[in-house]
């Protein structure tokens, strides 16, 4: 039994370093457990997020810095996710296929706001008198789901098809479709308008989705991956719709709508938004598509690049890494990630294989993670072993 562990670990290590030999033709069953979590932004610093969530005074200089970063693109984004997955694969079957089972949970939040909305909320409108603050487009999406997937793959685990049953436990989707806020330089005219909608549901929804990967080549390979491609039928929930507009040089005294008398009357605000129950509906899962390519060089060196689209990311994400395995037990990698919710940042990884299993840790932006001025943190840990 111990010999099997040694063989399996060695196979896994050599596969990671691209030195898998033809002599290793035995593919035992295996199990792995992965945990990942991250928050990433192209404008919001770790210090800002920490203060916002933990409490304290958000310093004007920090807010101004964030707004300065938003000036170019005119918007900023934030993504947060956390998840874990327990996977199992069996031995190679008669047709050369390997059965696969995975039980996973994941939560994902993606938000994007305009510079105008951010500055209106965190700086007020006084710094922007005479300018129109665009409040749209802005969107927040949040989904938490659990997944039980069954599939078949090849012996190396490089190509597979998994069909997953999804339980979307909670979700929300809100957007400001159009909106603007304007106060004249002389503070004698105001114009504001907004169309916004927020849906959220409380009852669990169910659905189906696919994870597919197919790889071409071995030493120099490329692969196409699709993850979480499917839909869920979500349960009942609530919808809040706001559609309001006001143009004034000061509130008039009386009359319908926005007046000095009207805003003091009970129930005035009820006209500004509509809250209603909504029935079941369909929700696309945050599917991702990945094109990945890799190569192996001599002396344990390898390289890999991937481009990822979707997953609620505002931009495609490019991921480039160089890997080195100095021994059969150890592997390290160094690379860079650009796009997604964030800017360009480094990524490092470390893998260690033993007779009791293999650990792989990837740390996204290790320098920025330790700094209050960093733009996010992220890490994943994978433990796997043969059975």
């Amino acid at each position, binding site marked *: 039994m111990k010999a099997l562990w040694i063989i399996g670990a060695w196979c896994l290590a050599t596969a990671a370093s691209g030195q898998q030999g033809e002599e290793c033709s035995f593919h035992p069953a295996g199990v792995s457990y992965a945990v990942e979590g991250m928050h990433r932004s192209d404008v919001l610093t770790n210090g800002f997020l920490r203060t916002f969530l933990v409490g304290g005074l958000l310093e004007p200089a920090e807010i101004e810095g964030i707004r300065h970063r938003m000036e170019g693109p005119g918007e900023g984004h934030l993504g947060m996710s956390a998840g874990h997955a327990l996977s199992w694969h069996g031995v190679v079957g008669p047709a050369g296929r390997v059965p696969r089972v995975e039980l996973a949970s994941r939560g994902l939040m993606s938000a994007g706001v305009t510079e105008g909305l951010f500055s209106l909320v965190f700086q007020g409108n006084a710094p922007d008198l005479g300018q129109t603050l665009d409040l749209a487009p802005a969107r927040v999406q949040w989904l938490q789901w659990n997944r039980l997937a069954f599939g078949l793959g090849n012996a190396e685990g490089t190509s597979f098809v998994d069909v997953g049953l999804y339980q979307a436990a909670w979700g929300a989707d809100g957007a400001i479709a159009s909106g603007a806020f304007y106060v004249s330089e002389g503070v004698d005219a105001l114009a504001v308008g907004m169309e916004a909608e927020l849906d959220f549901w409380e009852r*669990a929804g169910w659905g189906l989705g696919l994870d597919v990967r197919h790889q071409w080549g071995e030493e120099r390979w490329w692969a196409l991956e699709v993850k979480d491609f499917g839909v869920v039928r979500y349960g009942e929930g609530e919808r809040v719709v706001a559609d309001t507009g006001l143009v004034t040089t000061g509130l008039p005294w009386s009359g319908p709508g926005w007046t000095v008398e009207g805003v003091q009357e009970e129930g005035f605000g009820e006209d500004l938004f509509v809250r209603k129950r909504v029935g079941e509906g369909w929700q696309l899962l945050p599917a991702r598509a990945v094109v990945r390519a890799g190569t192996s060089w001599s002396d344990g060196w390898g390289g890999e690049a991937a481009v990822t689209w979707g997953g609620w990311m505002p931009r495609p994400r490019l991921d480039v890494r160089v890997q080195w395995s100095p021994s059969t037990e150890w592997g390290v990698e160094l690379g860079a990630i650009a796009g997604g919710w964030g800017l360009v940042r480094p990524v490092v990884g470390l893998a260690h294989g033993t007779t009791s299993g293999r650990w792989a840790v990837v740390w996204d932006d290790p320098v920025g993670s330790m700094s209050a001025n960093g733009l996010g943190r992220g890490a994943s840990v994978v433990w796997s072993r043969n059975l």
Partner: protein
Amino acid sequence: MNDHFGTWMTRWMLGGLVLLGLSGCRLEPTRWNADIALPLVDATWGWSEFLGDTLGEVTSGSPGVLRFQGKVAEVPLAELTLLPDTLVENVLSPAFAGGPFEVPPGAVLLDEQQDIVFQGIEQEFSRMTLEEGKIAYRVRSKTNGYVQLRYDFPSVTIGGVPVVLDVVLPPSTDGGSQIEEGEIDLASATIDFTGASGTEVNRINSNLRIGTPADIPYTALVYGTDSIDVQMLFTGLTVADVEGYFGQIDIDLNESADLFDAGRFPSGAVAAMPTQANLTVHNRMGADLAFWIESLELAGEAIDHPAMGMEQVLARADWSTDPPAADAWELDLLACTPNLFEALGALPADVAVNGTLQLNPLGDVTAGHDYLRASDPPYVSLDLELPLSVGVSGLVIREEVTVEARSMPGFVGELVVRLTHDFPVEWTVNGRFDALAFGPGPEFSATMPVGSESIELRLPVDAERLAKGGTLPIELHLDTDGAVPFSGFETVRMQLALEGQIQAVIE
């Protein structure tokens, strides 16, 4: 089970997210400061706001000329346009005791023509068209058999069709009653008030028929204690037009009206003289009209006129032409002693008129052919032409604007008062912000020169003072060096804005 699993997993996931993001829990509220600048109030006062919004039309020029030509009052004639409610009740009881007596289908118990007399009307109406009104009816039967009731009103027609009430009541049992209630809408109905004979007044022809329905094979059992009760209430009758003899109605013309509110115009005098000021009484009624103006007073001061105290008679309008030929009587207000407009320049608080108006002072000279269309009562019109060359002395105008309560936690800043005007004379203004929770604030004062840019004043305010709102009373002072030509389009504008810093807090 699934929901439980989902809830558990959700908590697990959300907990993970929070742990990842926070690396701890919330230790204190999240706070940040935001600078805001918001317009609150925009108030503009022009000639119409100062002196009322029915002044009429101002023509451009220097000076502008204020012209008013139009109706200023109508003579109320409720006696002719509102009819009192009239209740008609018929009770049918057998003229015997005991029973029962069998009454077969198709039997007639009562068939009677009636003239319904309208009560409480002093005039002698022969015809009218209603603006609105209704008949509220209630039919009650205590008869053990089907009862058919048909009430015909040939004198009351809607679109040429007589109004009819046709009711069938089922048998009442065990000594109870069968009741049917309802309404007949009489809007736009025409009523002939000459009765069945065609020569009466204030009465309408009707026919009431009570019996058993011929098409229901049911033999009624009638006892001496049975009864059938019909109530018809003519109610809410308002007149569109009416004919007849209206009588010699006397109407008191003791009217008064507020002019200049002393609280708003506490002091000052205005000198302006119209080139034309005629008051005209018009009679578009088909009835003669006489009136006497006994007195006219401005703030208790008597104003005399050669026509006062004399009987003025206006002949009836001739409605045979289109438009009807109306008689009119004109009063030149410039002939008043003392001068009416000099008296008005002292900004009197009220005006009072005493007099009497009488219909048909000569009696029934047309043999009952008076005519009134309710939309054309006698009225008073004013024809005024006033050049806006106005001298003002010590005029003070008080205005007040409200700053509504608003929750702005942590706000520290200023209430910005911005004043502009385009009058050809200098204004001075003083005022203060009275926060409801704190009382009067410090006063401010400013002069607004002719042709100046806006005057800006800044009053310190904070969250506590805004929390309950307040008022901003101001006084506008105006003096002119003699008569000054105005265009009539001048305005004073006051804008309030809030500028400062709020502290947003997330607990």
